[in-house]
């Protein structure tokens, strides 16, 4: 873990509420795809955790949805502005579990962390399939970026306005070696019930610190209590206990 100042390089609006932010700084503590960073925004007390979407040398790409005060403020940051960032948080995805033909399933703003994962898996010569699930065509982003990595990409929309009509689970391919997924909890649960293979599931929780000190984001698992920020956000299929 490291706390350093990043500089905003660019900010791009991907859809009505989703932004791509590129930052420059010391990325050396980010060791795995699926990890997150914690941003300190002016005037807000707690940091805001955002998953790592891409890394290119010292350039860090984050994709986030404006859902409240913090992300709204973040969306107004301009190139050249400085942002304190805690980096290297969370366990991230284990690429060694992928097998030859991994399947990546992202829902909404669960899509971004899968991008760096797809890049790493492609670099390792894996045949990567990707399902990107959204509500409607206007919410779709990063389809072209995943295709450019050489992934087999399927888009699903709930209203059928783009790609396959339905949920991500309506577009599962016939065979795959391991599933990596990130998205809203109902989607994760549906994926969990639909796949015969092993899977790595990335969860989201309201966090206090983001590095394991406050016990704010604890969850129960088959192997005991875990902190989503420290022993997560990625849990393996066999250790997940669904609440409620």
């Amino acid at each position, binding site marked *: 873990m490291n706390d350093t100042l990043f500089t905003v390089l660019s900010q791009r609006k991907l859809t009505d509420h989703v932004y791509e932010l590129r930052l420059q700084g010391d990325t050396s503590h980010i060791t795995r795809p699926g990890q997150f960073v914690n941003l300190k925004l002016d005037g807000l*007390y707690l*940091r805001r955790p955002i998953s790592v979407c891409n890394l290119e040398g010292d350039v860090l790409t984050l994709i986030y949805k404006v859902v409240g005060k913090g992300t709204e403020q973040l969306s107004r940051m301009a190139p050249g502005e400085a942002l304190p960032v805690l980096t290297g948080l969370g366990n991230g995805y284990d690429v060694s579990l992928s097998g030859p033909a991994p399947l990546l399933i992202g829902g909404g703003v669960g899509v971004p962390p899968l991008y760096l994962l797809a890049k790493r898996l492609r670099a390792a010569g894996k045949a990567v399939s990707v399902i990107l699930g959204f509500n409607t065509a206007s919410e779709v982003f990063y389809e072209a970026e995943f295709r450019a990595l050489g992934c087999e990409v399927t888009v699903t929309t709930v209203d059928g306005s783009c790609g396959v009509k339905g949920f991500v689970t309506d577009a599962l391919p016939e065979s795959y070696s391991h599933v990596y997924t990130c998205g809203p909890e109902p989607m994760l649960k549906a994926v969990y019930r639909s796949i015969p293979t092993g899977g790595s599931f990335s969860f989201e929780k309201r966090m206090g610190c983001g590095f*394991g000190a*406050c016990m704010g*984001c*604890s969850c129960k698992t088959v192997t005991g209590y875990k902190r989503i920020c420290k022993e997560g956000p990625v849990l393996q299929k066999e250790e997940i206990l669904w609440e409620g």
Partner: protein
Amino acid sequence: MGRLSVNLCGIELDNPVIPASGTFGYGWEFAELYDINILGSFSCKGTTREPRFGNPTPRIADCPAGMLNAVGLQNPGVDRVIDTELPKLARVFHKPVMANVSGFSLEEYAETCARLDREPQVGWLEVNISCPNVHGGGMSFGTDCGQAAAVVRAVKAVTTKPVLIKLTPNVTDVVSVARACEDAGADGISLINTLLGMRMDLKTRKPVLANTMGGYSGPGVFPVALRMVWQVAHAVKIPVVGMGGVSSAEDVLEMLMAGAAAVEVGAANLVDPWACKRIIEDLPAAMDRYGIRTLTELKIEN
């Protein structure tokens, strides 16, 4: 004796900075970041007799100048703390620690304290009678003078180490509770625990926290905490450990000027993991600016 050293119940501290319980785990996460032996001491995660998962999530909400938490005393229970956490801690921290204890009955407080009292690295017991996030225990002991005194007597009867009683600000008259603890034999007082608060989620029209209410901490509570430390320090003869929103060396000095013998730092650790290190390093320059030669001198002046 160094320029920053202070004395708490007969134990010398290199400096007055003590991370507050629940914001520093059992030290391990922070020992990976810096040498935690620079701390005066630290207060371990609140420990109960039985293991506890705590409250359902969300347990955290952001607030102006602070945060709410409703963690609800998640901890592995006193057996695990003694078997696993304290030996692990001894590898990275070589000073006396404060064992923070919570309970739901007098018997439970006494039993947990008695067991931790026997641990060589435990310097003080900090007995939490002020947790706002658990039902049927915690804060209910700290809002009643008779109940508070009963906890003190129960714990003092089975322990040998200094017993600090951690008080809640969620009372009409904190001084009377502090006096009741002193009269019952407490060796010190620490305050304040969090202020009971809540937030609504505008989209769902429901409370943000699954527990509805939680404890508010952070810089926003500092003036309230300072006022209560002042009131209690001027009303009792036993030492007072001040806490509540402390985030800078200047805040530490204000707490000491208000009568605190030592100072705990809580929420600040969660937004800046290096907060305590920074505060300790900033203290000498802050003292220079205000003509303070030693912190002991400051305490005597008070």
